[in-house]
């Protein structure tokens, strides 16, 4: 049973205490910034969103990230997962199920996998049907940060509601051609949902990802609950993030197809 994860906690405002305790950091858990006016522009929404995440300076400084947690699928299936992402545009996910650990990675140019879970024991290129979606995930900053410089297009589609809360809907056309919709919570300014369309087999499927349980780590705010599903369908994947490491040292070779 997938519990809704839209309810999320805004980080507790500890700006004064933390500023004193963490001399080397800016306020690690910034209060929800003063928002844009009632009818904001794209730039105003994105600016508020970036500030809520911890600010552009910290986001730009982020080199790598490792998240560990559990993935829950239907039927009570649970698997530990480790997700690593590194500039510029590298990502790797390990999933362990019934003693088998699979690796799925993309080095920014090509994706590959070692998939004992699927009876495939040697490193091999990711099938195109699987590799294409992963390209959207390669930007450690997220596509809204410096979207113009990245060659993306972002337009304001209007108001929406996500989990009973008001949100701003943004239409994104990424530089590589992919399209998606981002929903920014109108009070917390966090990204609470994305919607993208994928081709699965011979049909188009709309995938929605919902983000919640936002917590501050190293001066940046990250979701610790992610739920993905095909829109309108009851089954989905739920991720519970347990730890996030900021800027861990990751061997670049972990992202490249082994020889």
């Amino acid at each position, binding site marked *: 049973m997938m519990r809704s994860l839209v309810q999320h906690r805004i980080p507790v405002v500890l700006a004064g205490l933390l500023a004193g305790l963490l001399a080397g950091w800016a306020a690690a858990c910034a209060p929800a910034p003063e928002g844009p006016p009632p009818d904001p522009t794209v730039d105003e929404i994105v600016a508020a969103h970036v500030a809520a995440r911890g600010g552009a300076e910290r986001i730009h400084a982020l080199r790598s990230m490792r998240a560990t947690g*559990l993935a829950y699928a239907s039927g009570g*299936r649970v698997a530990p*997962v480790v997700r690593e992402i590194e500039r510029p545009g590298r990502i790797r*996910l390990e999933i362990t199920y019934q*003693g088998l650990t*699979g690796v799925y990675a993309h080095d920014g140019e090509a994706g590959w996998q*070692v*998939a004992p879970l699927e009876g495939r*024991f040697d490193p091999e290129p990711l099938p195109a049907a699987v590799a294409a979606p992963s390209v959207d995930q390669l930007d450690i900053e997220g596509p809204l940060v410096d979207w113009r410089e990245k060659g993306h297009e972002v337009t304001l589609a209007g108001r929406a509601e996500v989990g009973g809360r008001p949100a701003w809907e943004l239409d994104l056309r990424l530089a590589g051609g992919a399209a998606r919709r981002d929903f920014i919570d109108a009070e917390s300014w966090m990204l609470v949902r994305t919607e993208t369309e994928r081709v699965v087999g011979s049909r188009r499927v709309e995938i929605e990802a919902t983000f919640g349980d936002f917590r501050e780590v190293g001066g940046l705010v990250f979701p610790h609950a992610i739920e993905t599903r095909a829109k309108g369908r009851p089954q989905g994947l739920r991720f519970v993030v347990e730890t996030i490491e900021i800027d861990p040292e990751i061997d670049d070779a972990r992202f490249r197809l082994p020889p």
Partner: protein
Amino acid sequence: MRTLPILLLLLSPGAVLADEVYLRGGGRISGVIVERTDDKITVDIGAGRISVDPSSVERISQGPSDLSVYRDAAAELDPADVEGWRALGRQAMRKGLASQAREAWNHVVAALPDDAEANEALGRVFHDGRWMKEEDAYRAQGYVEFEHEWMMPEERESILSERSAREEAERQELDARIAADEEDRALREAEEEASRQEFWDSRMPPSGGVAYWDWGVGPSVWPGEPLAVGAEW
């Protein structure tokens, strides 16, 4: 504490060592090697056995595996020790040991049929005042199963209708191309489409379902039901 027996077994010098088979690229097979020849290495993963060509293996290490720790702890547990089985079930879930988790939670639900945690861990949902299998709850809500996914009947009909129209359009286009002396290119594209469909068809397990990863990239289908004990891959 229920976790204490598990920790003691881990630290015990008599704990059974298990095997970690490392594949090139970081994949791993964790369990107990039961056979090792020039042609294959067979590992008991706790839900059956899996064999791999030695050429795919980078190295093998020995040490307490999650599976061996579970087995040792389970052997010590009284079948009626509900909270002990609960702790063991939680631990097995956290390690991704699906078969072992199922075994442990079945012990809990046998004693406490309405235990919410155990039922959820076994993939059941509470619907219409009782615990039931997920698929039964979907069915009760009007969903239908189509190609290993649950959806409303209207969506299934829409997919089938689109597919039929597309196949007809493709057939007509193919006929036209053939007629226009583009047979070679048309046949190549048909083969590519068949290959794409074969890829998806080959990854449709009896259960498990399609997995949509929008947080990183992962397996295109979630593995199906844990293998029966003794099953081979």
